[in-house]
Every structure is written in C-alpha cells, then in structure tokens.
C-alpha cells in the first residue's frame, strides 16, 4: 500500500513577521524553518499505518525552492521511505500547488493521500480538499481521530459545537488536525538512514495563477491599553471600564 504525505516547509510559529522588500512576501532573514506542524500529524499517521500493516511505502511530496531539502530530509529521518521535491520558486497559490501535486500523485495510485489541515503560513487550508476534487477521491478534512476497518476508514472531525463522524472508502484524501496523534522525533538511526534515502527533484507543473498577492502588510498595532488595578481591589474598576468605556457588559 502506497501512502503519499504532502508536506510544506513553513516559518516557525515563534517567527516575528517582517515584510520583504517586494512588499508581497515574508522577509526570510533570521527565520527558522520547520515542517508545518499539521503535516507532522499526517506523516505520523501514515508511518503508524505502514507499521501496523508491516509493509507498504510512505512517500513524502513537497513543493518549493531548493531551501526545502532539509525539511524533506527531516521527514525521511522520521521514517518516510522516499521523497519527491517539486521545484517551484516563490509562493504559488493553493490551486496551482494542488495541480502540481495531483499530477505527481495520480500515477502513484496511493491508498491514502495525507495533508495537514492547513499550513501555518498562508492559512488557506485549501490544498487537501482541492486534491480530493482533482484526483476524484473522497476527502475528509481536519481529522483528529482515525480508525481503519478493512477497505474503509472511520474518522472524526471537529465542527462548530460538536464533531462529525465520517466513514470513507479508500483511496481517499485525509487532512489532519491537532489531537490525532503525538508525532515522533527523528531518531539518530533515522537521521543516519535518511542520508541514503532518495529525494527525486523535478520541476512543478503548476498551471494558473489563480490568485495574485498584491501586498503583505503588518496589521495595525493595537494601541497600548492600561492597567486598571491590582489584585481583588481592581475588580470593580475592571467591571466599570468594561461597562462604561467598552460598553460590553
């Protein structure tokens, strides 16, 4: 059974965003790059499934510039069998990316295509469901519980004020949310083994563009507020300002 895990390299969540000189993208100076946290849940679940089956192949697939190779190597160190690097500069829009990924995934005929729920940089949460549509496969997003039963799987996803229990046949596209599992760290043995695993690099077939980024800007800074009091004595004043100034209560 082949599983494909779509991963993305992103700026770490502690990054202080600075806008690059082009006025449209993140200034990469000083940024720590990580594997998108939601993709870690996807990769972990694929590895667990391969281990439970005792066979199969986990292929990680990523699109980006030359700088993403350490993240691919990290995924291989966690346990993926091989990596495919679709080369593209800049930050293509979600549908362009989905086109390129779908073209690569189709001939592999995987049982499951895994993606993180969303990348923590552009927060679009779009590539997964787009892949479902482009590949003609059922797709379930934001999955925080996964159970395999034969040729189908039962998953759960959070919705407003509750959760949905969804059953899907395989092959399918599944996007993963926090809570699904605890992703492993790469072991020393894994890191050594990853050095010998193949990374197949080729140009990405994007199509599009479907969306154009006109600008990236920092949000208006919040005006500094004030300390309304200390300890329990400050409580009446807090309630007063919320009622009279903020008119919230």
């Amino acid at each position, binding site marked *: 059974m082949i599983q494909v895990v779509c991963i993305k390299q992103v700026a770490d969540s502690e990054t202080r965003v600075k806008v690059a000189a082009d006025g449209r993208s*993140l200034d990469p100076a000083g940024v720590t790059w990580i594997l998108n946290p939601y993709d870690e849940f996807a990769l972990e679940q694929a590895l667990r499934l391969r281990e439970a089956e005792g066979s199969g192949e986990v292929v990680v697939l990523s699109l980006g510039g030359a700088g993403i190779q350490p993240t691919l190597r990290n995924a291989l160190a966690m346990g993926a069998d091989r990596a495919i690097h679709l080369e593209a500069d800049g930050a293509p829009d979600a549908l362009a990316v989905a086109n390129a990924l779908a073209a690569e995934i189709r001939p592999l005929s995987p049982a499951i295509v895994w993606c993180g729920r969303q990348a923590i940089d552009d927060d679009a949460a779009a590539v997964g469901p787009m892949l479902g549509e482009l590949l003609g*496969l059922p797709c379930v997003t934001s999955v*925080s519980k996964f159970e395999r039963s034969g040729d189908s799987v039962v998953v759960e996803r959070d919705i407003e004020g*509750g959760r949905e229990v969804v059953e899907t046949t395989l092959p399918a596209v599944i996007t993963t949310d926090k809570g699904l599992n605890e992703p492993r760290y790469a072991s020393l043995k894994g890191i050594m083994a990853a050095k010998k695993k193949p990374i197949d690099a080729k140009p990405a077939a994007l199509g599009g563009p*479907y969306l154009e980024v006109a600008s990236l800007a920092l*949000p208006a800074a919040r005006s500094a507020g004030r300390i309304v009091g200390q300890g*329990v004595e400050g409580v009446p004043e807090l309630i007063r300002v919320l009622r009279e100034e*903020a008119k919230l*209560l």
Partner: protein
Amino acid sequence: MSVLVFIEQREGQVRSVSREALGEATRLAASLGGGGEVVGVCAAASDPGLAALGDAGADRVLLAAHPGFARYDGAGYAAAVAAAVEAVKPAAVLFAASSLGRDLAPRVAAKLGAGLAADCTSLTATAGALTATRPVYAGKAIQTVRFPKSPALVSLRPKVFAPVTGAGKRGAVEPLAVEPPASGARVREVVTQSGGKVDLTESEIVVSGGRGLKGPEHFKLIEDLAAALGATVGASRAVVDAGWRPHSEQVGQTGKTVSPKLYVAVGISGAIQHLAGMSSSRCIVAINKDPDAPIFKIADYGLVGDLFEVVPALTEQLKKIDVHA
C-alpha cells in the same frame, strides 16, 4: 454583476454565518454595480426556511434539495454550487469560513479552476475588480489578493461581517436540479457537545486560561467566569499540549484564530503564537500576576494580581449584574 452566496444549514436551520455572508454580498453587489443580484444557493434535504433570507439581502435562493443533502456531502454540495455558478454566472461566490465552508470552497475552486481567497476579513470592489484581504501567519500579517480569473471565490471569517436586516428583497426560492455524484465519504453521525456550546470562532466573548492556572483542576475558575459572562472557554497551547484541555479549545497559531467582542486572557503570558490567534479581538482583558507579561502590551485593560483571588471575585461580582442587560 451578481454575487452568489452559499447558504449553510445544519439540522434544517440556516446558520448565522450565512446571513453575515449575505450582508457582505449585498454591499459587494452594490459596489460592483451593473444592477447585479444577490443569489443564495443552499443544499439541503428540504427547504430550511429560505424565503426569510429576502430580509437578509437575498434576491432569490436556489435550493438543491436531495435526501443525501441533509448532512454535509462535500462532493454533492460542490456539485450544487458549481451548478448555481453555471446558472447565475456570478462575479464572486461567497462562503462562510466555517468548518463546512473551509472544506467546501476549495473543492468548488478546483472544480471551476477558480481562485480562492480563504478566511477573508474585508472585500473591496474597485472598477469592477475584487480585492480581498486576509490574515496570514495566524494574523501576524495581512495579505491582499486579486483574482486573475472569474468568478472570484471567497470565504469570510465568521463574526467579522455584519448581516443586514429588513432588506426587503424577495428571497424567491427556486429549485436547482443537482444529482450528487457518488462519493465514498459519508457523515455517519453528528455529535453535539453537551449544552450546545457556541464554538470559539463564533463566540462574542471568549475566556481563555493558561499555565498560570497551575493544573487542569483549576480550570473550573475559567469555566465559572465564562458562565457568568456567557462566554466560550479557550486555552493556551501550553495547557493543551500538557493535556489539561482538548485541542479544540486552543487559541493561537496552531489552534483557532478568534475575533470576539471581548477576549479575557487569564494566566496567559502572551507567546507570539498565542497573540497571533486573538489580537484581532475588539477588546482584550488580561489578568496576570506578572506585570511584565507580554499580554499586557496588547491588552486594552489589564489587572495585575493572583488569578486565584481575582477570578473568583470577578465571577461573583459579574453574577450580581445582568451582563446582557
């Protein structure tokens, strides 16, 4: 130019996020000019009272009725929206950026070969062209995007756009013939949380607790304060990672981004990834014993003190006033 709005229903009720989208569609259709209509499209087992949407701004609503549409069917709903796009030829298609809308809109985008701007916080039409702004990096930056292809697909962040009332449009309900494609995925069950709590992303008031609570057993303090305020409970990443609270309550860059009217941060120091997820709240109150905590730099009102004393006192005093008066 016309604007199409996906109308979301759950259990036969139109969700309020769809009224917000209709409100924005009404403003957008006016600024796009050309006397375009605001048209809704709804997938449901039967009519969830769509005629009432005339007052929310809908000139008419296309109803794709099918027994399989009672619950969410991604492939089927996408087919319904695509059929409506074919019929209406809109300049823009609006979705709510709800859990359903964020699943559905990308499917429709892929089906139509159209651009999607997800989770937008404002839309502008200049000279007939649409520009959307959307928070990225969980709100640490704001991206402005344009659409090289038509229609423009947009999902709208809940609680940001105002619904309109008394629009006095016709809201004529018209059938839309859609045969849902066979799909291997099926919603087997919808489990509702006890008490029908409002979701974090749609709540007017959020009270979040952090590591300052020292243990999961003390979250009762947060729950009591939230109850007194009619608020939804949130949590910092630290306490979710520690297993004190479920991940569905996490506010921040690897959790939910919220923009309530009032956000109360209790025992949360204010890590960058947390601030990213809540700094677009209208009013922020911080309660923390450390006067140098970064949370105070973005809070409108701060109270420095021991939360174990302050929070029960605040809850008690709030109970004495009618907060919703």
